[in-house]
């Protein structure tokens, strides 16, 4: 090959590379300067990491990502009011799992699956990588067969407990003497209650060989009505074999079913073993009580506890806390270790004027590359659990996150956990309000579960009749 020919080829390669690069650049900068208004909930552990994903994607695409923070309730109200008023203010917003049907049915969000189906030319399937999510993440955020949005994290509710107490020889001995079986991770809710009762002590009594200077409690829950309380209670409700508010086959409310009442009575029976003030605890407050060392067990979202309990910078019990699956109720088949998966997703606001840029920003933000980069740079080892299994199984991540392997084995990859999501019904919030309010009243001693749930049943029947589900 002559030198001239080689030079010609080199020039051709350079020109071609230049052309490809400029095409790629043009593609990347197609959305340069497009403003994207994002509504996120302040206080959700996963919200900050997701905001950073979006900002990172915005930097690459050139979109001008502006995040607005609201409290959980404010976000819900504002989104609905803005949508009803026809305000095009927003492009992307966080959707709480129990609002997903309401928002999808009223058209507040454009389901991501629908957008993808209608705009195949816009979609980059490699970045979207739908096969790199846990089934539960896709299943939970699918409504009427359509995927609604990008999951903001993975893992549901787990049981956290104090290993120093569970392994203390005196405590083990005393427990066995009192209850007739060994003190260990509770496998059933009866055992859970026994352990909660056993560890509830007054100041001046001894706990694990030390005299207590303040009262100590068996368990802590977030019982502030209605969302916090219901998110805790729904684990019992499902584990005890009840429907989540209604029977999907008949569409009849089942709040006063024997199983629901049994679950309610169980929750009320835990009240003496909870710290004072639990009736107004948010999820953060309940976890904080465990993290400060005043409680033996807590049932909480793993993501929150990973950040607040396992993190030595925030927790006094980081070195003596362990986690496991939730207990079960013997005889309730198919609902072993029933745990609310919860979680929230990022959706496309239907009135957005920049839908394509919004979609592309989410697509890129949730790509494995950006997710891994943001996770490693900012949130390893405690601040977040990205929803992509490939990241969680990444050897480097496993090396840097001490609890990751155990969490994968015990929670995310385990197949015998009945993960569930709250029922997708526009009226769910109101039915939940009726039932949670009744339960709250029963927990404060104002009524019985039986009476409260019967009243809630009547209220929900009226609601369902009005909605046309039943006659």
């Amino acid at each position, binding site marked *: 090959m002559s030198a001239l020919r080689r030079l010609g080829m080199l020039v051709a390669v350079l020109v071609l590379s230049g052309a490809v690069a400029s095409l790629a650049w043009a593609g990347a900068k197609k959305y340069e300067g497009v403003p994207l208004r994002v509504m996120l909930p302040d206080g959700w552990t996963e919200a900050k990491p997701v905001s950073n994903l979006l900002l990172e994607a915005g930097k690459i695409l050139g979109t001008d990502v502006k995040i607005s923070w609201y409290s959980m309730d404010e976000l819900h*109200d504002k989104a*609905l*009011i803005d949508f*009803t008023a026809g305000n095009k203010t927003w492009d992307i917003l966080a959707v709480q799992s129990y609002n997903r049907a*309401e928002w999808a*049915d*009223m*058209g507040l969000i454009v389901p991501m699956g629908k957008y993808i189906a209608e705009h195949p030319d816009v979609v980059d399937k490699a970045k979207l990588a739908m096969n790199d999510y846990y089934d539960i993440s896709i299943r939970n955020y699918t409504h009427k067969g359509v995927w609604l949005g990008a999951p903001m994290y993975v893992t549901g509710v787990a049981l956290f407990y104090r290993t120093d107490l569970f392994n203390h020889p005196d405590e083990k001995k005393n427990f066995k003497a009192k209850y007739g079986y060994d003190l260990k991770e509770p496998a059933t809710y009866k055992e859970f209650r026994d352990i909660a009762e056993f560890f509830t002590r007054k100041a001046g009594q001894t706990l694990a060989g030390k005299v207590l200077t303040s009262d100590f409690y068996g368990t802590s829950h977030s019982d*502030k*009505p*209605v969302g916090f309380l219901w998110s805790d209670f729904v684990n019992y409700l499902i584990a005890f074999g009840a429907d989540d508010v209604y029977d999907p086959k008949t569409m009849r409310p089942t709040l006063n079913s024997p199983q629901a009442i049994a679950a309610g009575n169980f929750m009320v029976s835990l009240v003496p073993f909870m*710290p*004072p*003030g*639990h*009736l*107004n605890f948010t999820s953060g407050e309940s976890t904080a*009580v465990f993290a400060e060392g*005043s409680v033996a067990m807590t049932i909480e979202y793993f993501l929150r506890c990973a950040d607040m309990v396992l993190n030595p910078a925030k927790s006094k019990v980081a070195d003596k806390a362990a986690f496991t699956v939730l207990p079960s109720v013997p005889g309730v088949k198919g609902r072993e270790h029933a745990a609310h998966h919860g979680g929230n997703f990022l959706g496309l606001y239907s009135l957005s004027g920049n839908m394509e840029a919004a979609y592309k920003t989410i697509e890129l933000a949730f790509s494995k590359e950006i997710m891994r980069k943001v996770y490693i740079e900012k949130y390893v080892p405690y601040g977040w659990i990205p929803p992509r299994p490939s990241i969680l199984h990444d050897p480097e991540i496993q090396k840097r996150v001490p609890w990751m392997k155990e969490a994968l084995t015990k929670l995310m990859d385990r197949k015998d956990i009945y993960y569930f999501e709250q029922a997708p019904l*526009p*009226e769910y*919030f*109101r039915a939940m*309000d009726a039932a949670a*309010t*009744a339960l*709250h*009243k*029963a*927990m*404060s*001693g*104002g*009524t019985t579960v039986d009476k*409260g749930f019967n009243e809630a049943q009547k209220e929900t029947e009226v609601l369902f009749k009005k*909605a046309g589900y039943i006659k």
Partner: protein
Amino acid sequence: MSTTMGKRAGSGWAGVLRNPTLMFLLPMGLYLILWRAIPLLYTVFLSLNDWNLVRRGGARTFIGLDNYVSLVWDARFHDSLWISFVFMVVATGIQTVLGVGLALATDRSFRGKSFVQGALLLPMFLTPVAVGAIWYILFQPSIGPVNYLLSFLGLGPYNMLGSASTALWAIVIADTWQWTPFIYLLVLSALQGIPETIIEAAQIDCASDFVIVRKIILPLIKGTILVAALLRAMEAFRVFPKIYVMTGGGPGRATEASGILIYKTAFRFFEIGYASAMTIIMLVLLVTAYGFYLNVVRRVSLEY
């Protein structure tokens, strides 16, 4: 006069613009129409509709008085009105007694008077949400100072916000802390308006302090006390932010006052029509109270 002016000025908008009386009234008239009359009429209109933002794609249906008929049988709404009423009576009563007492106690010369009066008025300048948050922490059973004190005295800890029988009282305490200064301020200014000679004459006649207060001072300021109490009562009936922050209406529905229920119905359940009907009923009750207030003011002015 107005007819003459009207004729001179011409008719229609041109007439209004040339008429100084109407011109001066125009801004207020516009304000009343835009900010008061139109929203009120729109709320009345909404109250005659079945409008749920979530159901049927947010479609609105005219249903006449159905929402009002439903409210007649709505036990939850009746309970909420009762809670608002109890809160109004108890909170206003305590605040009035305390406000009058403090005004009487500080209406004299003593060292640090300005500081004491300033400190007494301070809570009034806080927003109700901030007051709610402060008292939520104060009443917190584990870390709250109130329970620490109760425990120290061997009386606690007691979860006031977590008990159906005490939660409303906890909110009354927070409201009293914030609004007693309002009554105090009005009564103090009334006390300072009483001529010294009247008190001196009574003292010359050897009347005791108690007799002076009961027979002279209180009758002279009773109009102010009534007006202050009525103003507070109307505000207390609409209580919302403190309950929202401190209990959210719980435990159960023990503190679900009408304001909270209307908020939930409108912004949690998105039953806009039904919430509007509740609002109109609340408004009717408050207008009735306001009519009573105006009557009292008129009678008091006549007495003076």
